[in-house]
């Protein structure tokens, strides 16, 4: 029997027409040809289409893309308050780039609405030429780009305990870190333009939000690798990340990378602003507090398998996670699949960039045993991510900021994974 294309089409069509009719859609429609069927099916809503995408045309191109209906990662926002934040769904992400709409948030007075055409950045103080820059001025300077993490120094505070809550996801544990490609003008360029004086030692960065949030930064960081960023992952910085421009300080605690930056005053002393005295200072067991602790030390977290996942089968599983350090590059990540008794080098996924999330992975053959998974990051200074007990021994139990102790996941014999103390057994 000769079966031409039309025969195939007609047979398919009759099935589709039947399915459509069963859905109550085709009343009165006459389906003779494939073209008729395409027209008919295009008129149906997506949820009512048949399940075989090879037999129907999809939607046409559109001005703005959308995620697959079945892939809807979400930030997790704290209740609205004076310390509002939202976390990145680390467990849902691949690679190192955080989609901009999933970048974590931490605001001190909400997200300001700043018009780009009236935005200005003032640089003054110990400079030869106090200057006001528009956004267009900033964009006219030679631009740089770097892919780097941004982490709130409060990230992981809930893991800074020997008794963490088992029902904690990677997002809840460490979701105040994200990685973006940041594009902007090097602050060194602007420092050179305004003529920063040689006796300057600090600069105060101030945001244009309702908190006028301010931080003091050593002037060396400005000359080194700071930038005024206006781009993020190929587009303008999102309002939640500082639109239209922000300070970005690679490797340093997120709070210091002042968003919505409106003013930089070059000085010879720190301002002692609220967020560098009463907040973002690190209490120590000896009755003191560490101040201006900018650099984020090396850290890692396994993002798979992790709560609330349950391993359905024994056999090979790829343990996956991210590692990062504010002191350069990650040089190694070690993974333990036996509660810290033994450690093996995980594979690092290129690119391994300085001050950037770095992917690691480690193959693990699970035979149904109860165990604990851990990871520890090592950076180019030789620093090794410490156990929870080691960090508490160095600082005392009262701390919160800069909690970079080892994160662990308990695996039960039924495959259920829960958050666990970061201490080798």
């Amino acid at each position: 029997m000769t079966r031409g294309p039309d025969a195939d089409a007609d047979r398919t069509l009759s099935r589709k027409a039947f399915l459509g009719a069963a859905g109550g859609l085709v009343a009165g429609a006459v389906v003779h040809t494939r073209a008729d069927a395409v027209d008919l099916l295009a008129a149906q809503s997506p949820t009512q289409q048949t399940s075989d995408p090879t037999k129907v045309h999809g939607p046409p191109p559109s001005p703005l893309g959308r995620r697959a209906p079945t892939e809807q990662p979400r930030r997790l926002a704290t209740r609205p308050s004076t310390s509002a934040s939202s976390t990145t769904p680390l467990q849902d992400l691949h690679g190192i780039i955080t989609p901009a709409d999933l970048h974590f948030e931490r605001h001190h007075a909400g997200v300001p609405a700043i018009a780009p055409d009236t935005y200005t950045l003032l640089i003054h103080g110990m400079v030869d030429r106090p200057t006001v820059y528009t956004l267009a001025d900033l964009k006219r300077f030679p631009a740089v780009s770097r892919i780097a993490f941004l982490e709130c120094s409060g990230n992981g505070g809930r893991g800074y305990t020997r008794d963490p809550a088992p029902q904690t996801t990677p997002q809840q544990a460490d979701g105040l870190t994200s990685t973006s490609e940041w594009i902007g003008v090097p602050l060194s360029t602007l420092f050179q333009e305004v003529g920063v004086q040689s006796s300057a030692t600090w600069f105060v960065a101030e945001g244009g939000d309702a908190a006028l949030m301010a931080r003091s930064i050593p002037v060396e960081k400005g000359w080194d690798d700071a930038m005024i960023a206006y781009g993020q992952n190929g587009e303008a910085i999102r309002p939640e990340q500082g639109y239209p421009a922000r300070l970005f300080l690679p490797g340093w605690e997120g709070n210091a990378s002042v968003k919505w930056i409106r003013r930089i005053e070059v000085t010879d002393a720190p301002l002692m602003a609220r967020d560098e005295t009463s907040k973002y200072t690190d209490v120590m067991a000896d009755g003191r507090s560490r101040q201006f602790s900018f650099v984020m030390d090396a850290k890692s977290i396994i993002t798979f398998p992790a709560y609330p996942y349950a391993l359905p089968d024994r056999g090979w599983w790829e343990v996956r996670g991210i590692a990062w350090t504010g002191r350069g590059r990650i040089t190694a990540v070690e993974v333990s699949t036996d509660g810290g008794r033994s450690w093996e080098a995980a594979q690092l996924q290129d690119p391994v960039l300085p001050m950037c999330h770095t992917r690691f992975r480690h193959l693990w053959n699970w035979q149904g045993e109860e165990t604990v998974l851990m990871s520890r990051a090592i950076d180019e200074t030789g620093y090794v991510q410490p156990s929870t007990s080691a960090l508490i021994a160095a600082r005392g139990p009262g701390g919160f900021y800069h909690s970079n102790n080892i994160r662990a996941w308990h695996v039960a014999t039924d495959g259920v994974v829960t958050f666990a103390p970061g201490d080798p057994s």
Partner: protein
Amino acid sequence: MNGRGPTLAGSFALLLLVTTSCTIERTPEADASPDDPAAAEPFGFGSPASDAFVAALDLDVRPDGAGLPEGSGSVAEGRRVYLAKCAACHGPTGTEGPNDRLVGREPSDFSFGRDRRAVRTVGNYWPWASTVFDYVRRAMPFDAPGSLDPDEVYAAVAYVLYLNEVIPDDAVLDATSLPRIVMPAQDRFYPDDRVGGREVR
């Protein structure tokens, strides 16, 4: 002619990029000196900032009192300001919340690092009185930031410091008296001593 002008095009572009990136990567020592003969000519983008523009934006108040405005406020005046504009968030005596607790001298031994439940207040943790003024002026009250005039800010700061038993009930704060206040926690802070490497700090 500006030797790295961004308007040049064509085959010069690569050379210009190299020149510019060399400039950017100069050491702070070389760049910090305005007399450095090697310093490149500025692009000159942007506009000169007038003193008035700077003054309108610059609200910084430093521990030495630099930046404090004219005006003054007493503890008694501060009580009125506090009850009207602060108490709803911080409680009638600065201890009730619902937002940050402002008042309390315990733990007086700064034992926060040993006790996670210890609450940090202006009286037991804030190292500088200037910070209270600076923060209140720039960010408070939370529902109307920047709405207090200098006298109200001085007064509110005075009342909070009085509640913390840092200043007496007849104190009046102004640009002279505020920087002289020594906060209980002033000597508790030290600069970051982490340096990477093997040691955990």
